[in-house]
């Protein structure tokens, strides 16, 4: 189901967490709210769920105005960063919670819980308590619990933020696959641009309570709307007073029109990637990202004079 957010503002005291934010989330899409902490992304997610009431503006879910509805009547699934597991209930009871509240038949609940535990690979853990699960397992349980009531939208607040790097990577890929299977409109909050790029179809960049840009991962990377987005979604380097991606620069051994003279300070080999740090003619420092093959071919060494030229084929670099 689609979500439409119309000019929503939310203040906490003097702090504007959301400042006149409007956004549309397509039915069945997988959207990431990306931004630095304090940017307003969690507040926006909580406004959609009804856990925060906006000062002004409206939220509608599946074409229905939900602004005044309490969370229990919005039919959204919500997953918290720290799982919010019901510690006194077994895994099965946790997952069944929403169905028990809805007074579904016992057999129906059992069947649905079984099915969901299989979906999140927790079959066999039904009678454990949350304290007996690992962080990743707890989060999958929380996800099954949110999905049990067949929510119209699934909202995840930094769902992998409390997990270690390996589990995080695993769960990202798994969330992606799950979305392909379940097709529920999904919005998740993250401050990790790699996570957003890897998982989401659409990314919303939020900063200072405002939306900076909405687009696919590719659009954000190749056509950033401004300096902030450019810096947030990928590495950034400066050349002749302009911001540019460090891999969008060619290193030339001969002078060339539009190429800037620079001296190599350091060549750092990172395996496939080679990072070259340089000082430009005007004393400014910069860096270029290239491949091992290229670096070998050019035989780059420290102290050598080279010429740098932007090679960006798409998306003009933004002025710094």
């Amino acid at each position, binding site marked *: 189901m689609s979500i439409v957010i119309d000019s929503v503002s939310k203040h906490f005291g003097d702090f504007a967490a959301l400042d006149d934010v409007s956004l549309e989330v397509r039915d069945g899409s997988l959207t990431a709210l990306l931004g630095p902490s304090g940017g307003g992304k969690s507040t926006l997610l909580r406004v959609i769920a009804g*856990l925060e009431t906006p000062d002004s503006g409206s939220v509608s879910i599946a074409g229905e105005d939900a602004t005044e509805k309490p969370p229990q009547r919005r039919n959204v699934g919500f997953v*918290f960063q720290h799982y919010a597991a019901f510690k006194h209930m077994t895994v099965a009871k946790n997952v069944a919670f929403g169905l028990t509240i809805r007074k579904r038949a016992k057999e129906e609940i059992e069947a649905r819980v079984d099915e969901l535990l299989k979906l999140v690979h927790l079959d066999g853990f039904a009678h454990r308590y949350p304290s007996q699960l690992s962080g990743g397992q707890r989060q999958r349980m929380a996800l099954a619990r*949110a999905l049990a009531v067949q929510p119209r939208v699934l909202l995840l607040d930094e769902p992998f933020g409390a997990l270690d790097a390996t589990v995080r990577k695993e769960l990202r890929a798994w969330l992606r696959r799950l979305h392909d299977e379940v097709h529920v409109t999904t919005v998740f909050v993250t401050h990790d641009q790699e996570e957003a790029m890897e998982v989401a179809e659409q990314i919303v960049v939020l900063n200072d309570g405002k939306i900076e840009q909405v687009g696919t991962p590719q659009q954000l990377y190749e056509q950033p709307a401004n300096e902030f987005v450019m810096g947030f979604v990928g590495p950034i380097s400066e050349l002749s007073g302009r911001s540019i991606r460090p891999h969008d620069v060619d290193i030339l051994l001969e002078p060339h029109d539009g190429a800037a003279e620079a001296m190599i300070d350091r060549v750092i080999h990172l395996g496939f990637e080679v990072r070259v740090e340089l000082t430009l003619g005007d004393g400014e420092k910069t860096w270029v990202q290239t491949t091992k093959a290229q670096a070998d071919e050019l035989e780059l060494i420290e102290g050598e004079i080279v010429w740098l030229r932007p090679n960006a084929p798409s998306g003009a670099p933004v002025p710094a």
Partner: protein
Amino acid sequence: MRSKYVLRFLALGYLVLLLGIPVALVFWNAFQDGIGAAWAAVTTPEAQHAFYLTFVMVIVAVPLNTIFGVLAALAIVRQRFRGRALFNALVDLPFAVSPVVVGLALLLVYGRRDGWVGQWFADQGIQIIFSTPGMILATMFVSLPFVVRETIPVLREIGTEQEQAAATLGAGPFQTFFRVTLPAIRWGVAYGVVLTTARALGEFGAVSIVSGKLSGQTETATLFVENRFQRFDETGAYAASVVLALLALVTLLAMNVIKPKEAQA
């Protein structure tokens, strides 16, 4: 190595001197004339009525203070309102004020001659002071803070995320409270209930003032003990003390027996 034993010896010795020996002596004195005499002393009609009245105190004061305590803790932890700090401090008043003062205060409010509230009740034909209602009020007053104090820290610790999760899953405020909040804080509440019960069982000062001490009518178990003691009926006084001590002990044990089993969950 040695300091470890010194510490244990000091802690235990302190406990034995202050608690163990006096309580043991109470038991010893109660059974000095044999179990039969002790049994006879606590089964006289006066004694039975005294224990019955103490039971009434507990059965009324504990549930009311439990409900109030949980609601008060919820208000203090989960809500922001003017005067919250004052309210929080007021809850501790029964800890700070001597029970005798509590008794006198109740006399002023509910007494038939001095208190206008008491007069109003008297006009309706309800006697509060020198009667059971007044004694219940006194017991409630002195045992009020326990559930609040034991519930507040656990309520703070569980936070609000579980409750929010319940709300997004479709639970209304009542369902959330009974299915999520209450089970999560139940050990704090239970401990508060145990302390409230123990306090209600043992209350003497405040109840003594508002009761009028009519033997067989407004005499609770603790007042019975005092009464017997002043009449040089040592067996009666100590035997009743033993029953009181055992009741308190059972309350404490009951909780310790059920708790570990479920606490693993």
